[in-house]
């Protein structure tokens, strides 16, 4: 991509995380192309970027669709580092995937070293209510514990698909504005953070 539009247009980098098979790619493709993919094909690392209009402002959203499988756990760090916002997805029909969100959350926080990183807890496959294993209450309890929003989506019916991406982008945008205002102290912050980490280690 040429650098000129990138310079003028805001670019929000979203990373999809979550266990394998919860519907990260399905959500992404539904958002990007209004397309529901039925057949399951494990993702390695996919990249999507398109222009969207966010509250009247034309911005670019960059989605990194990561692998859910444990095989790729080692390389997640690298990906997470570049993320500006995270959609942590689990399947409401699979408790394990819900439990795994804890691990992802921790890894993100460790890599980003930022408690307030834009983050959404997403319970996917809301169309399969009859197979629900994770209660709404449990999910909401966890989101409150983390201090993040919880949204239930369905990549199949497109329920809340746009909502989660746009909500996350809004968070990222407001976060960026925040950062800009405190841009002067940013480097120091980071240095501090690093130092802190070293001390911990």
């Amino acid at each position: 991509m040429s650098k000129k539009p990138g310079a003028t247009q805001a670019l929000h980098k979203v990373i999809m995380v979550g266990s394998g098979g919860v519907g990260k790619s399905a959500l992404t493709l539904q958002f990007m192309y209004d397309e529901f993919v039925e057949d399951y094909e494990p993702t390695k690392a996919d990249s999507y970027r398109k222009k969207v209009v966010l509250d009247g402002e034309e911005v670019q959203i960059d989605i990194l669709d990561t692998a859910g499988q444990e095989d790729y756990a080692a390389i997640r760090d690298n990906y997470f580092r570049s993320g500006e916002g995270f959609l942590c997805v689990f399947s409401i029909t699979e408790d394990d995937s819900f439990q795994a969100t804890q691990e992802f959350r921790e890894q993100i926080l460790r890599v980003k070293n930022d408690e307030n990183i834009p983050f959404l807890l997403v319970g996917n496959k809301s169309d399969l209510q009859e197979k629900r294993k994770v209660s709404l209450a449990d999910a909401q309890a966890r989101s409150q514990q983390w201090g993040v929003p919880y949204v239930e989506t369905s990549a199949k019916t497109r329920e809340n698909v746009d909502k989660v991406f746009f909500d996350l982008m809004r968070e990222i945008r407001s976060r960026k504005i925040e950062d800009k205002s405190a841009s002067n102290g940013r480097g120091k912050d980071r240095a501090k953070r690093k130092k802190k980490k070293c001390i911990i280690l």
Partner: protein
Amino acid sequence: MGPPPVVTGISPKEGPPGTRVIVRGEFLGSRAQDLIGLTICGCDCLLSAEWKSQNKIIARSGPCKGRGDIIVTTRSGGQGTSTVQFRGYHETIGPMKESAVWVEEAPMQSFVWGRRALSPTNYQQEDPLGLSVEGNEKKFPEDELIELFGDGSGELASDKFHPGWFLLQHHHATTLDDLKAGLAYLRRKVHSQKEGQLSFLKANVGSVMEQLDTIVLLKEQFESDVQKHGSDPTTKLEKAIKESMAEANKLFDDVLARRDRADATRNALSLMQRYRFLFCMPVNIEKNIKRGNYDLVINDYARVKNLFGNTEVEVFKRVLVEIDERIGKLRNMLHKKLEEMPATLDEQKKIIRNMVNLEAEGDPAWDAIVSHARHLEKSITACVHEHLESESAGGDDSSKTPKSNGSTPMSVKQLRLYKNDINNAPVRVLCVEAICDVVMEQLPDLWRLGQSYFTGQLHVTVDIEKQIPFKNLVLSGMQHAANAMKSSCSSNLEASWLLYNLRCVRQMYASLIHLDLPNEALDIFGKFIFDLRFQCMAALFKQTAENIGALHRKETWQMECLYEDGGITRLPSLFEEMIMEVSKLSRETAVACGPREGPLLAGSAYQALYHNAVRTLFTSFARCLRQLAFSGSEDAMEDEEPSVSQLIASPTGYRTRDNKQHGPTWEQCLLISLSNIRYTLNTVLPRVVEFLKAQGYPELSTAVGWSSDWTELENLDAAVLDAYLERRCDPLVGTIEPSMYLGGLEWDSEVEPTHIRPYAQEALANLIAVHAEVRRVSPSLLKRVLSHIVETIAEELARLMSCVTKFGPSGIIQARADITLLSKALSRYSTPRARSFFEEALDVIPPPRNKEDASRIEALLFKVTRTMRLQLSCLTDQKPDNIIVEGIDSDRTTTVTIQILKFVGG
């Protein structure tokens, strides 16, 4: 132009070359053909691109390295852009990576950070400054770097590593603070490594010492081993290794040898497979020959010749030789087959074509023609042989049948019907038919074959010089057929079979005419047909003549029809009918000209023959009539009795009638025959002449001897009349004398004449009987017959009178009255000669002595005339004639009357 394609998604976003990549975006082409370009990181991937939809393309990445755009180009939207990038990398193979390639593991042991079992990918991405690289998407242009540092490199592992290059390449956008932090990080790392080693040793002195001890122990052990086993323990090992190597080599050699063999076999097999066509050729040829697929064989052969004709390969040559051998056999077989007969034209043509294609030597087409001709000749000969042989074998049958047929008279109608009875056909007829069939079947083929030979349709080099031999072949074949048929027809066949033959031959002729054969050839059959036609005609006439000759059996003597002058039997009309029919039949069959046939009776010689034939009809009829007329003579002779006066015994003719046969007497037969003859001469003959003329036959009147009793009927007529007269006249006249002197009467006795004497009455009565007899048959004969009898009577009377020695006066009266009355009564049928005889008789008698006597004679005459009025009117007057015929219709009456008046006048 539609909107340009935009790639907005890539899955996965990185991978080694050949990664299956799903490219997503918008306007990626309206259909598969619309997609005309796809590059990933500058590598063209169109070849592997699989267009799925407007939003999706699946492709495989090329051998690219580093980050790059995915550019889709479509016909409708042109070159597009990409919002995402693909990163290609070449996987560095490490010990942790599954790989199909052997990886040397040893150097990895001495890896700088050997203890950290990092995957090479991770290692590569590790930044030595501990800073994130992700933020540095903005690359520092490489050419600028080269400009700045020459042949340096940013690679950490490179010999030409240049820190400046590295920093610019990876961190030119990093803030100074970060760089400082990074430097500190690097220092710390280096320091910790250096520090680490020493402190590590310090912390583990015990175990290090232990290791040292162990090493010393090992050394001692090793030295003792050296003492024990010699200074060089490896020699044994080397030997063992060498041995095992030799062993392994041996094993391998074996295996390799087997492999070589297997390879050789495989090669041979694949070669066979590749040239299966050639190797299977001999078998295929055999198979196809058996099936009759010569075309296939020829095709294959031509192909083989083309492909391997100039081959240098020994094996191929061998196969080719074998193939040539088979083809040679095939040629021979085809040649034989060509000469084999019978074969249809198409088959032969096919074979000829095949042989031409096979490049057979010689001239197969000409051979075919010759063998065709020979076969034609042969089959004709065989035909003749077969039939004639059977004829001679069953000679009894065949000789019997014609005889029996010949003896039974057949009407022409029967002749026609007889044709259908083919099963009983004589052998010769069958023979001709068979020959016709043969010619019809084979000659066209031969001719057509020749035509196609000379017009070059057989794809043979045409030898123009062969045209004459060909013509001769055809001609000789036809001549042979004609001769064979002629010899078959020449023997005495019946007309019906001849006609049948003619029909066969004509049919054949017609079929040949269609062939455009040369005139010379057609004339052979034309001449034969002409002869046959004439033979047919002659046979027909001959047959008819025979039939006519047998007509006498049909005679019933029933008077069937009355014509103007009298009655006839059926025979003349039957005869006429037969002539008409035969002439019609022969006209329809033999004389009528078929296609390409000349008029039959044009030549004078043929006309003469024709005349003869017709004349034979008449003469045979005449013979028949003669036979009929004189058939009763023997019977009549038996009945013959000495002629006695009727006054003593009743005349023969009338006496025997009741107790003997019911048929007519011989005399009547004679009369009827006479009538028939006259009718034939006067009515039938002209009618026949007219009819034949109308039928288109030559004029009969030009025949030789036409004027001098051409039909021999005149002759017969005279003979029959004579016979009749003899029969009637002699007894009649013979009785006069005995009757005259019956009872001792003499002319000089003195008996007063009261009536004419009985002899005169008897003569008169007899005459009336004859008259009646004749008249019943044919009134026109009356004059001829009666005048003759009257003449005889007059002569007899004159003789008798002159013999009288003495007349008494009453005798004079009597005699005069007798003679006068007779001469008066018979005057109507008297010829001048008869009249002179009467006068002579009167002259002999002395004249009446006186007037008284004369008046007595007159009175007597008057009286007798009155008493015998009825008898006399029979012979003289026309009135009784009128009375007789009054019952018949008026037309006839008038004509009859006219006839009688004529007679009277004459």
